[in-house]
């Protein structure tokens, strides 16, 4: 029990520090110690951050994640359906191709994706991020959905087939809705990964107004080397959306994150 509390302190104290010092004024921070409780908390740091590029970052991340997630769920579940349910030549080859992507470090794709994005004229736009975001999350998405679909009984589809349903109807009206638990898990997992994604946005985005949250944060660090409290305020603001999401979803999020265990 004592250990449980010690570990709790280790886990949460960094966050408490972030919160506590983000409401200090620079003078108080630099004269005092990070351990003291703020004397007169001010939200000036937060209002300052908000008037800078922060709303852009939030908006960009939100748009890119929302679009990428929609494409991932649709294309991923269709692909998983094909691999789990249909019988066709080369099927195992395609499955192996997707599974192979799970352990491959994405760095192998960085330079080619960078040149491709430039050639497509999508460099330094948030739209250029969607392709790689979908591409590198498809393996795990298909893997989880396929495993789940394997356990759905075939009888419903067979009954629908007798009633004259097409393959698409069997997928969209039967298997897709029945896969809801796995789709929720995959969505949660992909969402956390994409919300926090850094390297593609570092490589493919340049202008401040096109940055995502993680890239913007990294840049704030450069701007605020002399103003640690402001930096911490930006940090807290950027982590808040996912913390709220976690507070709402709780164990669902944990389940989703570990359903993707393979990705590490």
């Amino acid at each position, binding site marked *: 029990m004592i250990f449980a509390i010690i570990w709790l302190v280790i886990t949460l104290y960094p966050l408490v520090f972030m919160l506590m010092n983000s409401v200090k004024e620079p003078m108080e921070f630099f004269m005092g110690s990070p351990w003291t409780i703020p004397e007169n908390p001010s939200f000036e740091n937060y209002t300052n951050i908000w008037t800078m590029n922060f709303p852009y970052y939030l908006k960009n991340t939100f748009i890119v994640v929302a679009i990428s997630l929609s494409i991932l769920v649709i294309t991923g579940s269709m692909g998983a359906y*094909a691999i789990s349910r249909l019988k*066709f030549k080369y099927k195992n080859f395609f499955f192996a191709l997707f599974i192979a992507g799970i352990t491959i470090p994405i760095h192998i794709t960085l*330079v080619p994706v960078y040149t491709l994005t430039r050639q497509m004229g999508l460099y330094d736009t948030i739209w250029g991020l969607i392709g790689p975001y979908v*591409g590198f999350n498809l393996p795990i998405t298909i893997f989880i959905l396929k495993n789940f679909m394997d356990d759905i009984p075939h009888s419903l589809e067979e009954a629908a087939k007798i009633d004259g349903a097409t393959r698409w109807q069997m997928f969209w009206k039967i298997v897709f809705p029945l896969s809801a638990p796995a789709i929720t*898990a995959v969505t949660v997992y992909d969402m956390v990964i994409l919300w*926090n994604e850094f390297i593609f946005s570092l490589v493919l985005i340049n202008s401040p107004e096109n940055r995502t949250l993680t890239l913007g944060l990294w840049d704030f660090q450069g701007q605020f080397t002399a103003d640690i409290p402001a930096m911490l305020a930006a940090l807290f603001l950027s982590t808040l959306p996912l*913390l709220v999401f976690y507070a709402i979803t709780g164990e669902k999020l944990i389940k989703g994150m570990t359903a993707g*265990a393979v990705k590490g």
Partner: protein
Amino acid sequence: MISKKERHNLFVGLAFLAPALVFYLLYFVIPVPMSFFYSFFKWNGITPDKEFVGLKNWFLLFQDKVFWQSVMNNFILVIMSIIIQIPMGILLGSLVSSKIKGARIFKLLYFVPMTLSAVAIGLIWTFIYEPNFGVINTMLDTLGLSHLATGWLGDPDTAFGAVILTISWEYIPFYMILFAAAISSISKDLNEAAYIDGATETQVFFKITLPLISNTIKTSCVLVLTGSLKYFGLIFVMTEGGPSHSTELMATYMYKQSFTNFRMGYGSTIASFMFILSAVLTVVTLYVGGRKEEFKCGRKSLGSESLR
């Protein structure tokens, strides 16, 4: 010659796969041979002219001391992650799956670091390690241990250790969940029978729990191994691989060569090496020791079990 029915099946199958394949081929599969192709050129990535240099980049790579240091650091990271994260994961996993009061709340709170981005974690910990106003040094000052204070991330002797601790802080909750799931799937009867026979808690842990979660331990080692090749954001934010390459990993070195120095040919060579290494590691873990089936089953049960 394939029959008409087979052709129809293939068509339907590909129709369902096509949307995913377009993204996957364009952004993941084709870039792999492309990177290998670029590794034979000297190229800045922006101007169209590439100079063919044959295997020069590969020879350079094998003589590059910094590169080998980054390989070594990746290796140390794997070892340290296994030593720190897995035992802590088991410890916390058994804690949150035990009957202590508020186990569920503990589990939920312990998991918080996993929801933060590597960038945010890196920045928070940069502040903790900050030499003048940072959490650790001010604490040492108050305790009268000022002589122990140092610029944790600025000192080549301490930087990598500091980064490894941060990485552990981030990932321990993940392994906690894996082990909690494994431990709670152990039949309660087994433990109770042992207690009735007079076994102590330590005995139950080492004689029953540990052997029964050995598969999860193996899986975790594989995850640490493949995951370590991908570590980037946190180290990039905290140290950019410095000071004097003491925290350099293959991933950070690859990024810096390609996108800071604009040596895209050489960067692609490093990336290609990482690809070969990860492919070899994956094949070795899958096939050597004939554990292929067990590994797959472990993965599968892990994946679907956690959805229920």
